[in-house]
């Protein structure tokens, strides 16, 4: 684990989370929110939860980018929540596209959590 500093790891985690949050907001949350609770293609509670988590992820990414501890913790929490969504999608969704997307997201979330817990190289003790 010696090839990346902790600050770099947190910044990479922040960028990855911002990307996924923006994809989620643009591709899933906003279209459903615009349609409204009645006409939403997906359960509206799920849409609201997803939108909330995406916004929280953006805030957490800002904190992580500034190397703040709360940012890293919040990113871990959000990505842990997103893992539930990804696993649920892998178990219950139909369609190759949805499964491929959920698989990529699962890897993404595990990667982000690992980056938030990144440990810098420690000199071996005497």
């Amino acid at each position, binding site marked *: 684990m010696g090839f990346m500093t902790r600050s770099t790891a947190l910044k990479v985690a922040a960028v990855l989370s911002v990307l996924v949050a923006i994809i989620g907001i643009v591709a899933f949350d906003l279209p459903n929110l615009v349609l409204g609770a009645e006409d939403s293609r997906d359960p509206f509670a799920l849409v609201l939860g997803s939108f909330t988590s995406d916004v929280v992820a953006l805030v957490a990414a800002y904190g992580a980018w500034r190397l703040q501890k709360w940012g890293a*913790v919040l990113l*871990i929490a959000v990505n842990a929540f997103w893992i539930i969504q990804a*696993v649920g999608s*892998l178990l*219950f969704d139909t369609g190759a596209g949805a499964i491929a997307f959920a698989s990529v997201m699962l890897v993404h979330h595990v990667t982000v959590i690992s980056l938030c*817990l990144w*440990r810098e190289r420690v*000199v071996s003790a005497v």
Partner: protein
Amino acid sequence: MRSEAAARRLYQLLYPFLLIWYAFVVAALCAVAATWPHRPIGSLDEIPWWSHAIAFAVVAASWAPVSAHLDRSVYQLAFGQRDNAYEVAGHVSRQLLPSVAAALASTMSLPYVEIEADGRVVTSHGAAPEGAPITAIPLTFQGHPVGTLRVSARRRRDRLSAADMRLLEDLGRQVAITLHATELSAAVQQSREQLVAAREEERRRIRRDLHDGLGPTLASLALRLGVLQRSIEPDPAAATALAAELRADVRQATADIRRLVYELRPPMLDELGLVEALRNLTGLPRVVTAPDPMPALPAAVEVALYRIAAEALHNAARHAEATGCTITLATDPHAVTLTVTDDGRGLPGDYLPGVGHRSMRERSTELGGTLHIGPAPGGGTEVVVTVPRATR
């Protein structure tokens, strides 16, 4: 204290949370794999029981390394790297100079600040405007040059004022102290790594000696003792001859052990003390003078003085054709000085330090001491080594 409590609370919450999460993710992945052929499933009840059993087995098998890894990671996230003082010190020193350069640039409105040491740029801040002159200010610490501070003027064809230069020279002294401290930190780290390397090398040598020397000898002795036992009655003459061989081998093994022990620490130091051990060294006739009583010295100091004296005696006999020498030990509350003076032909005009002299110098330097080798006042060569009485 509040941040300490918050960090502890964070650790106490996040660590078990992530452990549970790890178990959940493993269980979910096992469920996905187990239900893959007939997916999508209608409800969680369709996940077979053996999927959970496999998940349980995987979690149980990987629990120790994963929990240890998570523990260290969450600990660092919560508390930082305070459990590794060297890492923290290194981090501070790495961050210090960039911060100093940035502070200089912002407080004096300088577009470019660069700190150089040993011919390389240690840190720089900003960029020099095109055509702006660069001013170099030498950084000195206690009279010794440690680097250079380079700053650019604020605008093209503009020069720094005399007041700016005075302020920069004053601030340069602080930068020099910081630079010196950073270099010291790096030197401490390097020294520490050398100590670790030396210890490992010593261990390797001892292991090699035990494995290649004593190990086979003792194994061979055991085998031949078996032969001896079986041949006592049928062939007493052969048994007697074998016993004589075995006795010689045991003597050899004993000598090997003695050599090994001697290389670790000369036994004479423990049996006789430093002064008597110096009197009993093999080599030139000598007169040993020491305080009576000789104050107790750390073991490392005793070994270093003993080996330096042995090397000096060896050199005097081999290279200087000396017939005698004097060894003087002198102590004060802080240091002990060993002086070896021979009556030989002295150092040659084209003297270059050899392996023995370098070894003596390394032994004294390791203990924070000094070594001087030069002509003795009355002819011959004088070796003077001074080491602190309290080893660091």
